[in-house]
């Protein structure tokens, strides 16, 4: 009945400041009230909300900004929120490049950079630094071949971040293939997950198709 909770939800959920007209338009469907009347009711509710949140017991507020209304943290709390933002430990975020290289190392360790590049079909040396930096991989001696290239393996940190006890806990290719090959049932109502697939496809396209035997 009351407009207050509705308007509060709208303003909270809106990504950009939302105007009184927009709010009234949204409410029109639910209420049967006349538009002018609805608008004045909405304005009254908003004023009430603003007053409510301005109380000292609130850390957030409702403000009129850029012609619309929006919710935000109060300026007094900005230092706190800023320090919170800083304290956030982001999840492992790796570029697809880095993730690919990490996967190859995890499954083929110990392995040299030329070997990784060969499997991936693109030069891997750039990403290695990132992975070393994040302590996800480390060196593991040198391979006993010409040039004695450095071998790489995954670290304890890697196990920790991926929730593994040891590397053997990684699903084997066979296990995984079985899972995937059987996933063609209609477990999902169709037409989703497209974006990801599309992304994969483009990467693949740009990286495959290299001329392989040219230098041999």
């Amino acid at each position, binding site marked *: 009945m009351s407009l207050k909770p509705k308007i509060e939800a709208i303003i909270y959920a809106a990504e950009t400041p939302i105007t009184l007209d927009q709010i009234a338009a949204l409410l029109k469907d639910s209420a049967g009230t006349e538009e002018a009347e609805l608008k004045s009711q909405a304005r009254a509710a908003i004023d009430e909300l603003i007053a409510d949140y301005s109380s000292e017991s609130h850390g957030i507020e409702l403000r009129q900004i850029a012609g619309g209304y929006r919710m935000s943290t109060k300026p007094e709390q900005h230092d706190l929120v800023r320090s919170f933002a800083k304290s956030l430990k982001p999840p492992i975020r790796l570029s697809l490049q880095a993730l690919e290289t990490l996967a190859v190392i995890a499954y083929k360790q110990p392995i040299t950079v030329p070997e990784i590049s060969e499997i991936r*079909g693109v030069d891997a040396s750039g990403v290695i630094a990132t992975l070393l930096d994040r302590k996800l991989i480390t060196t593991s001696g040198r391979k006993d071949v010409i040039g004695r290239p450095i071998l790489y393996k995954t670290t304890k940190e890697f196990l920790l971040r991926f929730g593994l006890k040891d590397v053997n806990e990684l699903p084997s290719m066979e296990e995984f293939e079985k899972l995937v090959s059987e996933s063609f049932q209609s477990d999902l109502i169709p037409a989703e997950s497209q974006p990801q697939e599309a992304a994969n496809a483009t990467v693949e396209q740009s990286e495959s*198709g290299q001329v*392989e035997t040219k230098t041999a």
Partner: protein
Amino acid sequence: MPEHAKIAHDFPSAPAASASAGTPTGAKREANDFPFSVAVSSVYEGPLDLLLDLVRKQDIDIYNIPIAKITAQYLAYVEKLRELDVNVAAEFIYMTAVLIHIKSKMLLPRDPAAASEEQGDPRAELVNRLIEHEKFKSAAQMLMQKQQIEDAVRSNPAIREFIGAEGTEPEIAADVIDLVKTFQQVLERARSRPMIQVDEETVTVSQMIEYLRRRLSLEDRPLRLKEFLRNVQSRQALVCMFLAMLELVRLQAIQLRQDRLFGEILVRKHDGFDAIMLEQTAVKDDWK
């Protein structure tokens, strides 16, 4: 279809009648009075679903299932399923065996010497499985409701304004599954990579050896010879591939195996594969 539907509709009145008849012919007729449409086979996700449905639709006490009757109905259903689709899921067939086993156990006279508690009801295990299954079906409904409620809710974090714009390059948060998937994609890509330049006329034996080296270094398992030949189109490339294989066999870098006449030929790395291939890169001019 409409016929089946009609039978299903009429069915509720049937049990009482046939039960009172109680003759062998009555029992038989009942087994044939198959209550459900076969065309809806996809409705039953598995044997437990089918059994539960048989129990429910006929108002049978789940703790006291007339096993002979249910088995007959179940068999009739699976039989019809097989008429429609020879590849009836193994699970359905397996359950048939379970039912018949229970039925035969029920027919055995009870051992008067044994204490009554020791002779458990042969149906007990099946009933427990059915109930367990039904419990999880209810749980699934509960999850669906919870999910719908959660979908209806929106959270609008304000933190973005406080986080610096650093690290704006598109990144992926990853878990173990991403790792496997990614590795599989890498392998997939490596395998499907065009192995020879478009200009197949100029392919050499040494290029083929290099390709084999690359391809085999990805694998720990033996590979089918067919796989290697799949992408080789021109005659010259085929000849080079053949010579390359022979050379690698001679060097004992790879092994070829054929288990039976005209069988699949498998290619696998020999113990010294890595070492031999490395030596060869130094002297590969020999192959030209």
